[in-house]
């Protein structure tokens, strides 16, 4: 009886003339906004890419320069992710399981790449390793090329993606505390055993989530890479840089074909991210029910 009563009550509140319109108006605004600013451009990418048929679309990828750009992007990503993974785990491990002087400054520094513009990040490396930079002359002497070459692109991408894994792990590891690690140590585990068998399984979803975000950013980075790359076709062009060049040459189909590739990667990333979020939430719910931190 009481349930029926409260439901009627609820319906009455909703059907009051003011209450009825507010949710409809808000929902409409949200849907329109999403449609115009997200779905429409997303559709446009594929419409433009396929404008002259699938044959022309596929032709775009046969271009050696396009292939080289795809290869370079993959290479950079494959180098950046493991490095960031190791750094992210080490940094969050150090800041959450230990206390050391300067911890606050360290945590702030991790966020630095988020705070400054990617273009500035690029210039930092030019300033350091460029021809007139601090280490430029020395590098010249030893015939090492960083700026306007692949190492510079890797460094710039690394710099802008540093915070992703660490930012994801630090709050997670903070909330988990150190008691499970202590339990492992008391039971005779070595540092490595403790990490591999206790810490890692507890942070795996957060770690994967961080890697996915890091991956998305590494593939799509434009600003910082643009500064340190010389835009040399077939050598130092990543996918985003190649898209810009194609577009400026009025090769619209080629530009959008490459763009569609990036978009597809983004959609896959999004799906993976959602899956990981769902999985980790399920794990967390288990822990909450279990009452274990």
């Amino acid at each position, binding site marked *: 009886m009481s349930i029926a009563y409260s439901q009627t009550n609820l319906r009455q509140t909703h059907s009051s003339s003011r209450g009825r319109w507010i949710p409809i108006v808000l929902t409409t605004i949200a849907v329109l906004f999403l449609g115009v600013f997200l779905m429409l451009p997303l559709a446009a990418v594929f419409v433009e890419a396929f404008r002259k048929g699938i044959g022309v679309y596929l032709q775009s990828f046969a271009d050696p320069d396009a292939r080289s750009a795809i290869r370079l992007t993959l290479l950079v990503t494959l180098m950046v992710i493991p490095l960031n993974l190791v750094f992210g785990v080490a940094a969050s491990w150090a800041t959450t399981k230990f206390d050391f002087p300067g911890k606050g400054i360290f945590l702030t520094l991790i966020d630095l790449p988020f705070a400054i513009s990617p273009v500035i990040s690029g210039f930092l490396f030019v300033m350091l390793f460029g021809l007139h930079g601090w280490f430029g002359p020395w590098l010249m002497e030893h015939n090492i090329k960083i700026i306007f070459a692949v190492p510079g692109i890797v460094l710039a991408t690394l710099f802008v993606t540093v915070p992703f894994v660490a930012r994801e792990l630090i709050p997670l590891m903070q909330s988990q505390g150190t008691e*499970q690690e202590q339990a492992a140590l008391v*039971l005779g585990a070595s540092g490595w055993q403790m990490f591999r068998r206790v810490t890692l399984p507890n942070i795996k979803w957060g770690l994967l989530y961080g890697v996915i975000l890091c991956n998305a950013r590494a593939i799509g980075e434009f600003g910082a890479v643009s500064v340190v790359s010389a835009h040399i076709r077939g050598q130092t062009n990543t996918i985003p840089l190649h898209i810009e060049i194609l577009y400026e040459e009025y090769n619209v189909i080629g530009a959008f074909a490459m763009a569609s590739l990036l978009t597809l990667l983004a959609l896959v990333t999004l799906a993976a991210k959602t899956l990981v979020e769902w999985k980790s939430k399920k794990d967390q719910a288990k822990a909450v029910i279990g009452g*274990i931190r």
Partner: protein
Amino acid sequence: MSIQITNITKTFGAFTALKNVSLTIHNGELVALLGPSGCGKTTLLRIIAGLEQPDPGSGPVLFHDDDVSTQSVRQRRVGFVFQHYSLFRHMNIFENVAFGLTVRPRKFRPSKDEIRDRVHALLKLVQLERHAGMYPHQLSGGQRQRVALARSLAVEPKILLLDEPFGALDAKVRKELRQWLRKLHDEMSITSVFVTHDQEEALEVADRVAVLNAGRIEQIGAPEEVYDNPANPFVFNFLGNVNIFHCRAGEGRHQFGGHETKAFTSAAAYVRPHDIDITRHSAADAIAARVVHIAPVGPIARVQLVRQDTQEMVEAEITRQHYNELMLHAGESVFIQLRNARFFADDYSI
């Protein structure tokens, strides 16, 4: 294995958790570290385990006369049960209990069959044989605590340390588990130290109780010893309810029924509620009081009274039978007599 710690001091920033604490625990003993929160009892336990390092200048920690001060927690090989169990949540119960054996270097690691047998024997001991394949979140609090205990026993420690082992459990499970712990200790006779803030738990389970306050051990002794002969007002107060009667020297004899005050200029008498007798007849050493409230619960009746002369509150506990005989009612005037009292100097602040 005996434990001997000498002159341990531990500070966390400006906070001093332990001040020059020394303690000896004999082989096979079950000792309770009892005190209010923040008294340093958990810190002391963690220093024994090696999870915390004492301040420089502290004395050594000895296990069976061996100095383990420089040994890591891993090398000390103690069993440690955490307050919140700290079970590995991604491992099932079997894997949790087996953990200490599976992380051993290959040379010292028992074979798979041996590990399986030992884990099942331990699970049988804690009555959780049928839960081997379950995960920690599927167990109740009491079951999880037993898994934690089995896990710590798997490595066959010579010393077992328990941090508020029953703190997070409800009253009934708590009571069962502490009797069970006592039985287990008697069977295995492993030197054990447990931390608790529950005086009833400490007095019921332990061979000896160390009462801690503000980083110091106030008293250590058998349960009946610390209860009957508290060394100071803190211990008296912490181990049960107490009535405090302030008195000046010379006033003593008249008011405190034959209990002499010592040569304090100012003293207080500490009396347990069950050492206060209620009568309807005046006597030389009786104090007139008025009944305020009566709570007849179980075998005893708790009676709250107000002294007629000083208006101080007094709490008395009398047997249900005596209560029935007296036929007490709230608001009545009666007399109270002190059966037993201890005097401490008044300047002692609790």
